């Protein structure tokens, strides 16, 4: 993996546009595995990563200037990360750009030597090391023959009164600061939300010496049993019958996951941290920062049970109710998102990661929340498939990877069923709860506008016009944090289903995820775009074509 000093434009591809073989977006487990697999297949790889180093959020680690002798104690699968990084390091066939944000994907004219190849130009801004959001970043325009999207996911946090107070952080934030800065977000921390991710969050906090007061899991026993308890033997024997009807051997595949979960549970037990199910955070209070957290028992629909509230004095609250895929690059590349079924709301892929867009593969959390083990397997499959499309046949490892993928996906579906948000959570959203954090739009405002609009017309207004009226989701984060909740409050889609309790059928539409620019770009940087960089065909030089900046407040 080399840090390229300069990427020359290739002749005939338009000024400044460089043709590459396999472009991997994202340097987490899926992206690293994809890059390594594409290299095994013999393809040249360019990897772009938004952070200062590879590893993603899962292997978010200490920076080089602050090494630790036993950093592996903070991570699972650290040796896998070390091996991947070592394999790619010094490999001149893999170029790495860090601090590199993909901000647009455009039609690329095509190169004609492969179906779909060169159909897209991926525009990247590269910041100097450690200088995220610096002005005058370097422009890159890459035209990949094969694109692998491995952009991952971020926390989904359902709103409640006080979730905008300093000291309320996502579970991911608590873990990221613990791992990459050795920073405890508080001394006395409540961890709340839903899903197995709460366990590593609590574990990471304990490893900073923070006191974890309790872990509150919203799902109740019945929901947990539906997810985890149905056919429990399959947890050990695999995800169900294989394609030939033979039972898959899943013991080896899931043993690592079981060990990982057991490790977290043991850490909680050793620290005497209570783990309560059917329990949720209904408010955070304090003068300018979190001073107390209000927890309540939740019924089977996740609605708080009146009279069960208890107040816990805490100086930080880490909340995560699941994950939202980071879809910008995939959507801009033309990949379809599944509208129903187990993968609803995530990029739709086949077994080897092919999306609906020619020449575009996707892997890891962007295709469904499966954890790092699944991301590694899916990344490898996508990387091999991408290389294969360029004429580098994949070896016999594909069959084994496909078997592992099936087992891990079945496990992920269980997790989704056991912890998916249920519609009663809306009861925690009082009228004065800020739903859109950027524009400070309250639920009361959203509800009153929705009501007024509905009575003024025969058909209820779509979420788009309601968002334009209230400005919900139109601030700097462009709905990344509030999008699902805004839709749910407006009744335009519920991230929960009363009927099935499965995450699969419950994801709302992804209209708020379609963003003209994948990340914010300074106007000055757009003005500095090199001219004639968007050829519609290799032979035609176009006049300067600057994309219109996204409408921002």
């Amino acid at each position, binding site marked *: 993996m080399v840090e390229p000093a300069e990427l020359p434009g290739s002749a005939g591809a338009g000024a400044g546009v460089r043709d590459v073989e396999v472009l991997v977006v994202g340097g987490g487990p899926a992206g690293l595995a994809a890059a390594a697999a594409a290299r095994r297949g013999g393809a040249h790889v360019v990897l772009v990563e938004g952070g200062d180093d590879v590893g993603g959020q899962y292997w978010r680690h200490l920076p080089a200037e602050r090494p630790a002798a036993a950093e592996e104690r903070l991570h699972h699968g650290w040796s896998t990360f070390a091996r991947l990084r070592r394999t790619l390091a010094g490999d001149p066939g893999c170029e790495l750009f860090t601090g590199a944000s993909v901000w647009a994907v455009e039609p690329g004219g095509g190169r004609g030597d492969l179906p779909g190849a060169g159909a897209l130009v991926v525009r990247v801004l590269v910041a100097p090391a450690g200088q*995220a959001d610096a002005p005058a970043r370097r422009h890159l325009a890459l035209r990949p023959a094969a694109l692998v999207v491995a952009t991952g996911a971020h926390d989904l946090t359902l709103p409640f009164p006080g979730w905008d107070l300093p000291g309320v952080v996502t579970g991911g934030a608590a873990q990221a600061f613990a791992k990459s800065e050795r920073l*405890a977000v508080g*001394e006395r921390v409540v961890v709340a939300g839903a899903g197995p991710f709460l366990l590593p969050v609590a574990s990471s906090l304990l490893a900073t010496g923070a006191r974890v007061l309790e872990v509150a899991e919203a799902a109740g026993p019945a929901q947990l049993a539906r997810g985890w308890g149905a056919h429990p033997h399959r947890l050990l024997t695999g995800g169900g019958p294989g394609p030939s009807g033979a039972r898959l051997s899943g013991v080896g595949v899931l043993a690592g996951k079981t060990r990982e979960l057991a490790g977290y549970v043991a850490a909680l037990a050793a620290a005497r941290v209570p783990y309560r199910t059917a329990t949720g955070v209904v408010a955070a209070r304090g003068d300018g920062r979190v001073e107390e957290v209000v927890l309540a028992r939740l019924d089977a629909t996740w609605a708080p049970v009146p009279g069960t509230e208890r107040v816990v004095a805490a100086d930080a609250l880490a909340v995560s109710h699941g994950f939202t895929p980071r879809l910008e690059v995939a959507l801009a590349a033309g990949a379809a998102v599944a509208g129903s079924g187990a993968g609803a709301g995530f990029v739709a892929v086949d077994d080897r990661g092919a999306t609906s867009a020619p020449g575009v593969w996707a892997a890891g959390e962007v295709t469904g929340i499966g954890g790092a083990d699944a991301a590694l397997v899916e990344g490898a499959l996508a990387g091999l498939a991408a290389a294969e499309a360029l004429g580098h046949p994949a070896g016999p490892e594909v069959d084994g990877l496909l078997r592992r993928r099936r087992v891990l996906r079945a496990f992920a579906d269980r997790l989704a069923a056991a912890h998916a948000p249920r519609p009663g959570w809306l009861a925690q959203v009082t009228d004065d709860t800020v739903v859109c954090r950027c524009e400070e739009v309250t639920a009361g405002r959203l509800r009153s506008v929705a009501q007024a609009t509905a009575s003024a017309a025969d058909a209820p207004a779509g979420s788009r016009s309601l968002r334009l009226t209230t400005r919900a989701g139109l601030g700097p984060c462009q709905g990344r944090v509030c999008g699902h909740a805004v839709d749910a409050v407006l009744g335009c889609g519920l991230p929960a289903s009363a009927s099935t309790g499965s995450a699969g059928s419950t994801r709302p539409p992804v209209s708020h995820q379609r963003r003209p620019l994948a990340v914010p770009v300074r106007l000055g940087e757009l003005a500095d775009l090199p001219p004639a960089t968007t050829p519609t065909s290799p032979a035609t030089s176009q006049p300067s074509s600057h994309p219109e900046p996204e409408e921002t407040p």
Partner: protein
Amino acid sequence: MSARRVDPARDVARTTTGEPVTLTVDGESVTGVRGQSIAGVVMAAARSAGTGGALRRTAGAGAPRGVFCGIGVCFDCLVTVDGVRDVRACQRRAAEGAVVTTQAEPLPARVEGVEGERRG
């Protein structure tokens, strides 16, 4: 919030002490460890500085905001660094001597009569 750095002497990961890095945040000097983000330095200094870890105030309600997502997607931690605004404090490494200003712009006030004059 009483965020704090882990004491290297008691760290299971056996971190090194690291080199100090000093920033100015709204005119006050705060010290962290090289390699930290600006957000991390501000959070860990919150107790001594009495800031509660707030990084900016919202335009409408003037409410304090701190780190939320920690990975660069929520934009709640935007600060001005060396005169350049809208830098995500959780993504920017703390550089020695960086001048950080928290952002707090009220919404523009409605000026009575302006709309009518324009129409007239």
